[in-house]
């Protein structure tokens, strides 16, 4: 079957298979929404899909997750949503040489490297804080964002091309949402407690496909829904389109990095090595960390200082000191966090990875001498972050995979199901 006949209907509908073949879509969240979006994009022939989700598949996910293989999911081995989505998407992809990557991680852990060369970012995670994080990331990196959510028989889809600093952002419409990751399992328990109505496949299918349509539009450089949120009730048929206006008090980012300069330093190298490399760009670099680094925090029971030494997204709860509860030590120093690093900083001998910086991550640097700001991209590639599945276009072989160094299918301690 020639490509012309394969995509004849799509061409007639305004899709360019070559444009889709060259597209890279990063899907954050591989539940019902991510499944349905990826199913459409795979059938449309999107060239590269990246799946990001730390959660595992549960039996109740199957009726609204068309890419999950029932046999695999019902086996004894725990399956991760990201890898199951990837395998499912690869199996049905009509791209000539599909590339499907997955990472069993939280997006905050992967960092901005996950979006390297991405055409569109899709916010399909079950938590508002993740969407706020993705909105800021998309804006800074200049990558369009598609976001969706649903409950019961209603849902919404929004699209953000982020053209220019004057444009409204997702956070203009949701200014009360702050950053901070929440796992899907935790969210699921939370919504159960709230008595919310769960999604079903008809609902997820409607909104997943609506989102996929706008991903495809953005890939083609068309902005039909840019800066708008469409709300729809699948039972009553009532809809509402909201044109989002800029909130002057928006907590979100309303600027882009612009040019991102490469630096020959990777996340396993010391902060001091990054500072040396930055010397080629400016005299007095001040590196802004993407996430606050928590040096220490008060014990939740007695207030004594507890050493943490992790980025904030890796701190899931307030710590307890070793002496508690037997020996209360009142009067600790409180929360000690770092958001910027100077060349002679006490953290200079830490590895960048310890500060939460990932491969190919992007960091913002201020030059205190000139007052200018610029962004740098660390060394690294997508292969450092994702496990990649490819399908050999010539013989139809499937499932050849390339894993990032040190990667496993199992979640890390911080990402176990039920966190």
């Amino acid at each position, binding site marked *: 079957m020639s490509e012309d006949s394969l995509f004849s209907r799509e061409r007639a509908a305004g899709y360019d298979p070559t444009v889709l073949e060259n597209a890279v879509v990063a899907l954050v969240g591989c539940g019902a929404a991510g499944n349905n979006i990826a199913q459409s994009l795979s059938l449309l022939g999107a060239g590269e899909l990246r799946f990001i989700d730390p959660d595992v598949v549960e039996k109740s996910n199957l009726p609204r997750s068309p890419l999950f293989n029932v046999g695999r999911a019902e086996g004894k081995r725990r399956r991760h949503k990201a890898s199951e989505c990837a395998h499912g998407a690869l199996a049905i992809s009509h791209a000539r040489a599909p590339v499907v990557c997955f990472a069993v991680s939280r997006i905050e852990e992967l960092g901005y490297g996950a979006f390297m060369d991405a055409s569109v970012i899709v916010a399909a995670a079950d938590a508002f804080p993740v969407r706020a994080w993705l909105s800021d990331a998309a804006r800074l990196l200049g990558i369009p964002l598609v976001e969706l959510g649903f409950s019961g028989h209603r849902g919404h889809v929004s699209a953000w091309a982020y053209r220019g600093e004057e444009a409204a952002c997702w956070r203009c419409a949701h*200014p009360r949402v702050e950053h901070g990751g929440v796992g899907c399992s935790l969210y699921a328990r939370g919504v159960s407690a709230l008595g919310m109505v769960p999604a079903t496949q008809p609902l997820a299918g409607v909104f997943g496909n609506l989102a996929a349509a706008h991903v495809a539009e953005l890939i083609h450089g068309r902005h039909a829904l840019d800066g708008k949120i469409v709300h729809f009730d699948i039972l009553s048929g009532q809809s509402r389109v909201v044109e989002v206006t800029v909130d002057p008090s928006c907590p979100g980012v309303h600027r882009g990095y612009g040019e991102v300069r490469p630096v020959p330093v990777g996340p396993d190298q010391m902060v001091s090595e990054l500072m040396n490399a930055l010397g080629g760009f400016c005299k007095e670099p001040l590196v802004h960390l993407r996430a606050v680094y928590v040096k220490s925090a008060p014990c939740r029971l007695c207030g004594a200082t507890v050493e943490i030494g992790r980025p904030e997204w890796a701190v899931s709860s307030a710590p307890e000191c070793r002496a508690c509860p037997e020996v209360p030590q009142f009067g600790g120093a409180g929360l000690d966090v770092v958001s910027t690093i100077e060349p002679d900083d006490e953290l200079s001998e830490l590895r960048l990875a310890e500060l939460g910086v990932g491969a190919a991550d992007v960091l913002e640097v201020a030059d205190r001498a000139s007052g200018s700001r610029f962004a740098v991209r660390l060394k690294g590639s997508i292969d450092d972050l994702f496990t990649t599945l490819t399908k050999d276009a010539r013989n139809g072989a499937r499932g050849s995979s390339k894993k990032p160094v040190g990667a496993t299918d199992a979640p890390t301690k911080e990402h176990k199901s039920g966190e």
Partner: protein
Amino acid sequence: MANKQIKVTFLHPRDSREFIAEVGSATTGAAALDGLVKAGFIEAANGSRTYALQMQRTGKSIPISASLVGNGAQEGEVVAVTETSAGASW
């Protein structure tokens, strides 16, 4: 500026209910939403749902940090409350 009151009709995000309220010139969108929660017209926002406001007449959102009147709301204005769900998997 005198605290002029205007009458605003709020539309429920999920059904045909309406809530008519007197709104002061300094009343922000956030304060209006809080008032609608207190009045029992909508449930409180939480980790799975959040609200926004839309001027029915223009189709544009009203930034909730700013006053309704400052955003152009007039006597008899109809404002839709929209609900955004975080659900994507559950």
